[in-house]
């Protein structure tokens, strides 16, 4: 769809006002000069597809139909694209070549790096399978920006949890050494408001201010606990309305936007269901145990649950340790010296 210049400008001005930004007319004109909506290519690696589904759930700054028809030109997304097979793969390649240096590459999921990346194949080009790793290495440097949507793409996340046989890695670590700017948008799944607004920010004003984790400062600077409405309230157990710090809530060590934006059009959020934050936006997610204070829901010595008939010793908690540091982060990224296990037969080189 050709962009309607007037509509685009109108929207751009409104977005800039809403974001309290100065409108950069030069950048806007570059976007408009492309004579198309700003192109986006979305690749799925080792993922549950939850970030795609979350993207479909967006309501702010606008709904997904509006995003797709008037804001960006989504050249490829495996869940949405009409055509299967080689023509799907050609669509990716054509878009990347045509819009080299202009498009945004969205990476969903982690990138398996063991065995030359063969734990994740995107599709075939000329009967030759293209791995996610190859695709990110090929198209990442051609992109203007890379957006890591969700915790797996940002930090490895669930996909990179030990034992991590496929040696899943983040987009940033796979693209290490290249100069393409990367923005990480962790949480599981990605917060759709943050995703869409960041795409628009990149198009309109360039890379926003980032934290050391390469996450946009405006969304990830503060911990959930710092503005949690339950901060300072009486401690509660799971299923109760109170501060959940005593049952392992990760809010104090998790930087995310949940308190302000909540989820699903602002309907609710995890703590709103009397369930502790599991720290899904953290570089260390998922820690072992997830509820890492050691005071898991099993811990209360005053349990009145009569229908539950455990064989447990009454004072022991079910969590193996009460560490506050969670899982070791060394399993998060593939060590180049580590032997891939199990060994996978290498396909003929794709190059």
């Amino acid at each position: 769809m050709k962009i309607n210049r007037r509509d685009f400008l109108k929207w751009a001005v409104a977005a800039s006002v809403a974001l309290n930004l100065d409108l950069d007319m030069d950048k806007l004109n570059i976007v408009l000069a492309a004579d198309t909506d700003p192109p986006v290519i979305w690749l799925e690696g080792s993922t549950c597809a939850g970030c795609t589904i979350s993207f479909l759930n967006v309501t702010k700054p606008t709904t997904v139909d509006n995003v797709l028809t008037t804001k960006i030109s989504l050249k490829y997304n495996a869940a949405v694209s009409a055509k299967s097979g080689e023509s799907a793969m050609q669509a990716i390649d054509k878009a990347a070549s045509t819009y080299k240096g202009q498009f945004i590459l969205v990476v969903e999921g982690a990138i398996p790096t063991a065995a030359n990346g063969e734990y994740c194949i995107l599709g075939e080009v000329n009967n030759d399978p293209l791995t996610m790793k190859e695709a990110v290495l090929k198209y990442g440097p051609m992109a203007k920006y890379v957006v890591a949507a969700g915790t797996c793409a940002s930090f490895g996340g669930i996909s990179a949890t030990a034992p991590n046989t496929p040696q899943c890695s983040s987009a940033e670590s796979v693209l290490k050494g290249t100069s393409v700017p990367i923005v990480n948008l962790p949480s599981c799944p990605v917060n759709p408001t943050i995703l869409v607004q960041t795409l628009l920010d990149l198009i309109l004003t360039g890379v926003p201010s980032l934290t050391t984790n390469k996450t946009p400062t405006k969304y990830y600077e503060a911990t959930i606990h710092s503005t949690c409405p339950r901060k300072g309230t009486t401690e509660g157990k799971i299923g109760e309305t109170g501060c959940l710090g005593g049952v392992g809530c990760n809010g104090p060590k998790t930087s995310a936007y949940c308190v302000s934006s909540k989820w699903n059009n602002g309907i609710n959020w995890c703590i709103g269901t009397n369930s502790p934050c599991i720290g899904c936006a953290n570089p260390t997610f998922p820690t072992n145990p997830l509820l890492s204070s050691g005071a898991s829901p099993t811990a209360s010595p005053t349990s009145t649950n009569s229908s539950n008939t455990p064989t447990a010793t009454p004072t022991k908690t079910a969590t193996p340790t009460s560490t506050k540091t969670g899982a070791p982060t060394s399993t998060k990224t593939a060590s180049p010296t580590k032997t891939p296990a199990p060994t996978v037969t290498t396909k003929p080189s794709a190059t």
Partner: protein
Amino acid sequence: MATTIVLDPVTRIEGHLKVSVVLDSNNTVTSAKSTGNLYRDFENILLKRPPIDAAFITQRICGVCPVSHAVASVKAIENAAGFKPSLKAVLMRNLIQGADFIQSNILHFYHLAALDFIKGPQMSPWAPGYNQDIRLNDSQNSTFVTNYVTALTIRRKAHEMGAILAGKLPHVSSVLPGGVTTSPTSSDISTFKTYLNEISSFITGTYKNDANTLASIYNDYYKIGKGYGNLISYGVFDLDASGNKKLFSSGVHTNSSDVTLNTSKIIENVKYSWYTSSSKQNPADGTTTPSPGKSGAYSWMKAPRYSGMPHETGSLARAWVNGDYKKGISVMDRMMARYLETEKIATNMKTWINEIGTGSGGYTEFKSPDSGSGFGLTEAGRGALGHWISISGATTSKYQIVTPTCWNASPKDDSGNFGPIEKALIGTKVANTEQPVELLRIVHSFDPCLACAVHVISPEGEELSKFIIQ
């Protein structure tokens, strides 16, 4: 001269799927293979963790049916503890799972499957698309496209409705061993009902009309893609605290007769799968030892069988086993059964939301056992889902997951029987090998979810070079 069609990737599914078929000189499919293209190590990720972690982590198997994984997981953990949740917990789980079923079924019909039958908007990401065997006239097609967009809104609202009790979707916070942690207010219940009414109107109006339109225009698809005709359902939506009575009952339809589900008859085959772990094991005893390059194997999906036979699972199996729909087994029967269950679920949610009441009572403080084992069976949108857990030393010592797509997209079993999707493809005539929409219609009718297929899936090794058809 045989020719091969390779569809890699199959888009408009969840996850990474490749389908290859061999055609004879009449362009009729004589053999088929389905291959997953992503390996995830989920069952090993869960080990040496507190069992409760599985309730959160297994949801991340699938962003489309996370609630079903949460439910299967908490049922398995509760089963190991000998615990039964309250009726309020059961009904709140139904409402959350029901909301996710509705969004999933609407997503499937409009956004995953429809583009095999209609022309999408002529822009990315809908173009390039298919123009083979598009039978709708311009006006019908235009209505469909409009409804495609409306359906985006309705499925989003189904998730918003679910999040009232679930915290967020995908990936809920409130479904834990012990029940559902949410304490709904009267305002929450009222908001839920408002959403449900709007969504129900869409289902019984727009969705119903569009399903009927497709079914009448493509009525030859009532005779295409049957497969074996064997069906299995674990049952879903408990109607009492015991879990014995369900909205969709469990059961099996094998060789034209209906039988009671007996989980000990579920056996996983691995002869044609890239595993060296023992074949023919029940999931409770099964292990997962990957062995890429294993001689003779062509897929990383295991091949679950019931009484030794391949079985299809999903909306049609649920409807059939429950006696709701027994007209036939085909592409279009699957589409119609999926519509009918969506309507049925929404109708029953109107009852459940009136029964849950406000405030606490949905969650009972829960302690996982230090040792024990259990299983949890439920249904995801695309079929039967089971989790099996063993606990020792207060942590998970074994976890096995059998997902619906393991049933549907499985490879051949040890006896050489094709998997259900493979079988459904065989015998199909392809009019235009450049645009094999017939194959896509069949594959999509199963709503395959490769994200879900967990240990199913495989790095492709040498099988590609071996997969040469002369």
